[in-house]
């Protein structure tokens, strides 16, 4: 097939083509589409005339928060985005960092919160599909998915639907789901969060840009056909402007419907097109559909694209021009192809059973132009494809839709009260004194292990295929996943974390904590973190308090990444996560990929041998606010959120890979949710080995045992190598203290020091408070927690 005339689809009789080009100034259409009067004026200035209805629809989706980042763009510019090995950064579909002379890793986090709130199953599924497309569009084969799911309560029925949605898609496309988070917090009740991270591996020579270079090149749309699904706010156009007769109009789904089978074919076809060097540029179609894909690729190359409306393969007749241009039908790709390679491109698509069509071509004028072969005389002379009289329906400078879209500096103001009242029954001591209240720390530990936020994720992870690809070394239940790279000794280590509890109290600290924890989770395996992706989940930025929270989080993200020497290679912003009950807790979701030079030298969290010494790196930082313990027991109003010492975190990130490479670490586990006691319990349960430990308590046993202060890692080491480990830690300026030794089938933590004995005597106990629990009891609580909370333990 050569550059034939594109197939012509008839526009339905009920669609008045003329209406698309009708000036809109007389109506209030822009408001219905979500554009403000100010934005309409701005559009007029840029066009030098009134936009018509189609152009307004295109602006409305491209200037939406989701596509334009209009409220966050100026903040995001402050993030550090360059660094060693960064091949592609923000602005591309995904960040790409070099691994070695040949290989590079592409990765990105993305949200799909609002669709998932409306339709959990499809919302979650298409979220996975969208982020995978961002990865293979770069020329990378997706090798792992991690999902961060946030719900209000385990019993929410959406929990199950979302889990299945994520799982069904990932399982089908053959990309292993290897990790993530499942978090419950009341602020997510009406607005659950679905953040998905995808990681891909590529030969750097296959790196492909989402650009449309070379005027005269063809724009080929392949994959699924275009339908009316996923036409968001603009669907009001259907009734407001075009008077569509069909009665179903109002019920059109605004949530896209996913087809993982089509996605799998799309992956294979796209990677084949790239490998065979058949495309000049490749872009997936996500939000704002063809409008976004054409505007972005043209803008990146400094070109324009002319779209032939009738050439777009569609799944239903009678679609209006605006519907074709902004439909978010899933599993579609736009390829920019040299005319002489068109036949080869179409052959690949045909082989994979994917419809493909030339829907436009690259121009020199820098505009996205929509043309139609209407039945009226042509309004524009020449330049149209052979044999047609084509009429222009829309013409917008590509950059006005993308890189130069409207930007806001939102007013930001700290909230008048940033702390919530203490929980009922909270002690009025300045710091929580757990034993003073007669609580048994062993019972607290057992209870925390059964908390839905800390207990085993097996209910979730057994629903996801974690081993397809035959590269999975560690997955799930672990804070970071390890994926080996075939044909090398290397492995990629990946994790995603957020800290909403701390974020709620202090969004700046929440962001710092998330970066620090995520980097630590990667580093405890022995890997060196390569780069950061993120997803900023916040409320309505038009409210100064929410705008302030976003500002603080971005500042925290930037400060943390600069201090740890980590480039931010990409990310995503999701705003307006609100319900009548208020905004969600500020959630800075962070994703980090690290490189392990020798997979055989990886370090796991589980204790491995009787007699190994157990030690704690890092000091306990006071403060229980924001911890899960505090959620159970309450805190005092003046209790602090633990500070993050970034210099100390940087030292840990340097120490851990070195210690692992030297073979000094038998195990290493980050201290985070549930604190030191929970971390120790995990090391013991997972290794099926107990431990006998002594913990010196300064003043607050609860903070020491259950505080979630950052910067701490539990390690075990062969006794004969203790001095080496100690010396290395000292060299990195890291405090390290011995806690005891691995052995037996119980976890025993004796509390010593002033804080502990004083407490015990104070309430007349004959012995010092201690934790002494069998692994069986710990494991039972940990395993039963989530199914019980979900009501699935029947």
């Amino acid at each position, binding site marked *: 097939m050569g550059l034939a005339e594109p197939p012509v689809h008839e526009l339905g009789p009920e669609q008045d083509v003329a209406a698309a080009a009708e000036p809109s100034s007389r109506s209030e259409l822009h408001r219905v589409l979500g554009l403000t009067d100010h934005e309409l004026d701005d559009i007029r200035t840029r066009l030098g005339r009134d936009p018509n209805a189609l152009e307004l629809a295109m602006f409305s989706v491209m200037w939406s928060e989701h596509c334009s980042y209009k409220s966050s763009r100026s903040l995001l510019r402050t993030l550090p985005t360059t660094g060693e090995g960064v091949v592609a950064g923000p602005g591309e579909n995904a960040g790409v960092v070099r691994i070695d002379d040949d290989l590079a890793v592409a990765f990105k986090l993305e949200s799909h919160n609002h669709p998932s709130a409306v339709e959990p199953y499809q919302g979650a599924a298409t979220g996975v599909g969208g982020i995978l497309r961002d990865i293979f569009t770069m020329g990378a084969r997706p090798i792992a998915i991690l999902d961060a799911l946030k719900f209000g309560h385990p019993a929410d029925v959406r929990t199950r639907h979302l889990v299945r949605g994520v799982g069904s898609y990932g399982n*089908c496309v053959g990309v292993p789901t290897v990790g993530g988070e499942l978090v419950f917090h009341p602020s997510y009740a009406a607005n659950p969060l679905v953040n998905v991270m995808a990681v891909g591996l590529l030969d750097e020579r296959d790196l492909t840009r989402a650009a449309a270079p070379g005027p005269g090149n063809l724009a080929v749309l392949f994959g699924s056909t275009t339908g009316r699904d996923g036409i968001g706010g603009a669907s009001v156009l259907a009734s407001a402007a075009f008077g569509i007769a069909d009665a179903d109009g109002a019920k059109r789904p605004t949530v896209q419907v996913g087809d993982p089978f089509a996605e799998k074919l799309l992956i294979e076809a796209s990677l084949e097109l790239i490998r065979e060097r058949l495309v000049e540029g490749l872009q997936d179609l996500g939000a704002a559909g063809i409008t976004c894909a054409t505007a972005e690729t043209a803008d990146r190359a400094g070109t324009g694209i002319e779209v032939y409306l009738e050439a777009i393969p569609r799944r239903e007749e009678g679609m209006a021009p605006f519907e074709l241009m902004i439909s978010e039908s899933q599993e579609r790709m736009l390829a920019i192809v040299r005319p002489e390679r068109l036949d080869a491109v179409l052959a690949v698509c045909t082989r994979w059973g994917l419809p493909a069509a030339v829907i436009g071509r690259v121009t020199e004028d820098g505009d996205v132009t929509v043309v139609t072969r209407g039945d009226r005389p042509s309004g524009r002379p020449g330049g149209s494809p052979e044999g047609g009289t084509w009429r222009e329906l829309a013409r917008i400078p590509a950059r006005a839709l993308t890189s130069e879209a409207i930007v806001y500096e939102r007013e930001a103001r700290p909230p008048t009260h940033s702390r919530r009242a203490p929980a009922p029954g909270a002690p009025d001591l300045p710091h929580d004194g757990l034993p003073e209240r007669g609580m048994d720390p062993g019972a607290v530990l057992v209870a925390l292990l059964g908390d839905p936020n800390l207990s085993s994720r097996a209910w979730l992870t057994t629903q*996801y295929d974690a*081993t397809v690809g*035959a590269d999975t070394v560690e997955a799930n239940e672990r804070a970071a996943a390890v994926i080996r790279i075939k044909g090398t000794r290397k492995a990629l280590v990946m994790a995603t974390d957020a800290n909403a509890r701390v974020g709620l109290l202090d969004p700046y600290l929440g962001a710092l904590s998330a970066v620090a924890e995520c980097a630590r989770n990667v580093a405890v395996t022995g890997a060196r973190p390569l780069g950061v992706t993120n997803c900023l989940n916040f409320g309505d930025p038009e409210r100064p308090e929410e705008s302030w929270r976003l500002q603080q989080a971005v500042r925290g993200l930037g400060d943390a990444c600069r201090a740890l020497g980590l480039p931010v290679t990409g990310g995503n912003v999701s705003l307006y996560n609100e319900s009548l009950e208020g905004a969600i807790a500020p959630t800075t979701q962070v994703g980090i990929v690290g490189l392990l030079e020798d997979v055989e030298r990886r370090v796991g969290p589980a204790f491995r041998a009787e007699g190994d010494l157990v030690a704690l790196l890092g000091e306990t930082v006071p403060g229980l606010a924001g911890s899960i313990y505090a959620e159970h027991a309450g805190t005092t109003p003046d209790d602090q959120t633990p500070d993050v010492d970034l210099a100390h975190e940087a030292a840990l990130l340097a120490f851990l890979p070195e210690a692992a490479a030297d073979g000094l670490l038998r195990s290493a586990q980050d201290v985070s949710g549930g604190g030191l006691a929970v971390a120790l319990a995990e090391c013991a349960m997972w290794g099926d080995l107990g431990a006998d430990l002594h913990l010196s308590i300064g003043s607050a046993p609860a903070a020491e045992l259950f505080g979630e202060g950052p910067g701490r890692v539990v390690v075990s080491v062969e006794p004969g190598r203790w001095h080496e480990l100690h010396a290395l830690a000292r060299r990195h300026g890291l405090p390290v203290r011995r806690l005891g030794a691995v052995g037996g089938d119980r976890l025993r933590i004796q509390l010593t020091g002033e804080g502990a004995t004083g407490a015990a005597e104070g309430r007349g106990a004959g012995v010092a408070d201690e934790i002494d629990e069998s692994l069986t009891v710990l494991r039972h609580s940990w395993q039963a927690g989530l199914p019980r909370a979900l009501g699935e333990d029947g």
Partner: protein
Amino acid sequence: MKAGIVVFPGSNCDRDALHAARLAGMEAELLWHEDPGLHGSELVILPGGFAYGDYLRAGALARFSPVMRAIEDHAERGGLVLGICNGFQVLAEAGLVPGALLRNTSLRFEHRWVRLSVERHDTPFTAAVPAGATLRLPIAHGEGCYFLPEPELDALHARGGILFRYADPEGNPNGSARDIAGVLNQRGNVCGLMPHPERASEAVLGSDDGLLLFRSLLESAAAHASGVAA
């Protein structure tokens, strides 16, 4: 030994099987579902995945692929065929092995590591598995509950058609009749199993037990070849 791994649209363990076959020492290549030739493959592997999106029913459409005619002929002539997971479902739909795979009794997709007992060691698929050894392999499926009417199960058992059983203390993961994880056809040259031996082909992945199946096939082919030569 030459192995051909079939790629259906929606196959997603094809490259994993290719990797494991080569690791075991086989000469292996991918076969396209629309190509009716087997290109000299002595062993045909139907890999896991969601062939044709599992539309209608897992394996229901894949069995009509052009390549399936060639595989049926190959099996008819005594050639070796191994169906893994979705490949097992395709073999069952095509009637090349007995039984049907129903939805897991949990009604959920199940991914986990399981232990398998090996019921026979005198087959080309299991000859290299040490007697008494159990195999540690992952499962990943939503429809792996093996079904056959009771009298036929007795007959299957009597003729030695049950090759692998789930042997975990907590029982089988999908509700399969008699804990059946893998079966043989009457002639003993076609095997289908739900667990994934190709994903357990290296110690770094958590187990290399799966490689024993590939080694068995390689060795039996070598023995067969030398037998023919003699």
